[in-house]
């Protein structure tokens, strides 16, 4: 079997893998923001017990390997809650919560980089603490966080392949499957690398566009 014939035959299958990968990465990123941002806020402005809880969460999810987390949720936590959820859902949840742990630290740094005066000024016009955070602190922090946040995308992309351990077949897994049948190794792995680089490049372009769009004069978004 020569390479081009192999590719023609398997391309649709690979495309399916791309979608699975993007699905995992997309939902994980989304979850990561949805949980990570409030956690960051809680860690900066929250009361001691809340900060402590967030600290534990971050320690746990940053400390354990993804595979262990996947097992824990797939075999332990979800069944324990009496929930029978599909593997894809578990994968996205685990990557998302793990992402939230990392992202909360990125956002925390960004929030702390917003100068104290901004909060003082917001309170002085009568905004509540929550209003100040919403209207003044976060809009600025998010802009600061964007470049660092963009690192999360390739990270999750890499981790997504571990989800095969619970049966989600994304791009990397499908690549291995093709290799195991066609016995063509390097060209197929390189093709896969190419696809990943493209995905990453596309993601970076989108982020860059966003950065450009929300760019504010004199406000360092540190656009690469």
């Amino acid at each position, binding site marked *: 079997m020569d390479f081009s014939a192999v590719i023609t035959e398997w391309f649709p299958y690979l495309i399916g893998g791309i979608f699975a990968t993007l699905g995992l990465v997309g939902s994980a990123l989304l979850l990561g923001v949805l949980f990570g941002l409030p956690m960051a806020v809680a860690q900066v402005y929250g009361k001691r017990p809340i900060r402590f809880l967030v600290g534990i969460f971050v320690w746990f999810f940053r400390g354990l390997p993804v595979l262990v987390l996947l097992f824990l949720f797939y075999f332990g936590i979800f069944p324990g809650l009496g929930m029978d959820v599909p593997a894809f859902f578990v994968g996205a949840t685990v990557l998302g919560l793990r992402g939230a742990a990392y992202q909360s630290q990125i956002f925390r740094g960004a929030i702390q980089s917003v100068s104290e*005066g*901004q909060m*003082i*000024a*917001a*309170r*002085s*016009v*009568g*905004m*509540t603490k929550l*209003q100040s955070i*919403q*209207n*003044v602190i976060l*809009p*600025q922090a998010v*802009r600061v966080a964007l470049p660092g946040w963009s690192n999360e995308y390739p990270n999750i992309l890499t981790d997504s392949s571990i989800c095969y351990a619970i049966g989600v077949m994304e791009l990397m897994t499908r690549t291995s499957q093709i290799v195991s049948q066609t016995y063509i190794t390097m060209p197929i792995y390189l093709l896969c690398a190419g696809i990943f680089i493209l995905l990453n490049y596309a993601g970076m372009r989108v982020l860059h566009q966003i950065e450009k769009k929300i760019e*504010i*004069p*004199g*406000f360092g978004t540190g656009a690469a």
Partner: protein
Amino acid sequence: MDNTETILRVENIHKSFGDLEVLKGVSFEVTKGETICFIGPSGTGKSTLLRCINLLTQPDQGTVWLGDKEVTNSGKNINHFRQKIGMVFQNFFLFDHLTAVRNVEVALIKVKGMNPKEAREKALYELRQVGMEEWAEHYPAELSGGQAQRVSIARALAMDPDVILFDEPTSALDPELTREVLEVMKKLAHAGMTMLVVTHEMGFACNVANRIMFMEHGEIKEQGSPDELMSETKFERCKNFIGQFNDISGD
């Protein structure tokens, strides 16, 4: 001053940071329409005093009254009082991610719940008052210091405050820009706004203030009208302090 109604009453404010007692029982009253200037050495507690008035810093002891309502111990209600007590800072503290007009209107919309169209109109009106209407769509980083300070005054004005507190509003500005801002403040004073101003600008204090308070070591040491400051013996320590500014040229 044709109106002698007391609008702000500060009673026996104490504040310590750790071991450092910064305010040692400060009391005074402000009549509607008055302009009061606070002067005194660095680290004396002037900024801390202003912040205690709208509870941006929580005083350890003492009360603040706005009209006939107590500001201290107002609990959640403090945000209401903060709308009534505007504040202008040395470093402007404009919201860096918002244009000039959005800086002015954001609190109108989010705090007062004004509808966006009205808020925009009011914001533009206030910007016009400080001569900044043309710069409405510029971001803070695109404004000079004097312009930024004028926007921050417009932001305070937009809330229709009863009193505005100014904490060294010009000390980050060079002389020419200082002049722009002082002009705006003078206009406000003449228009009857009640203002408390911490400043090193003796010219402004002497010319515009109804009363000057000299603070040192967390207390109001001396106070009186500018004329008294100029003529009487009362302001001994204060004159000594002011004297330093001129020393260097009188060597």
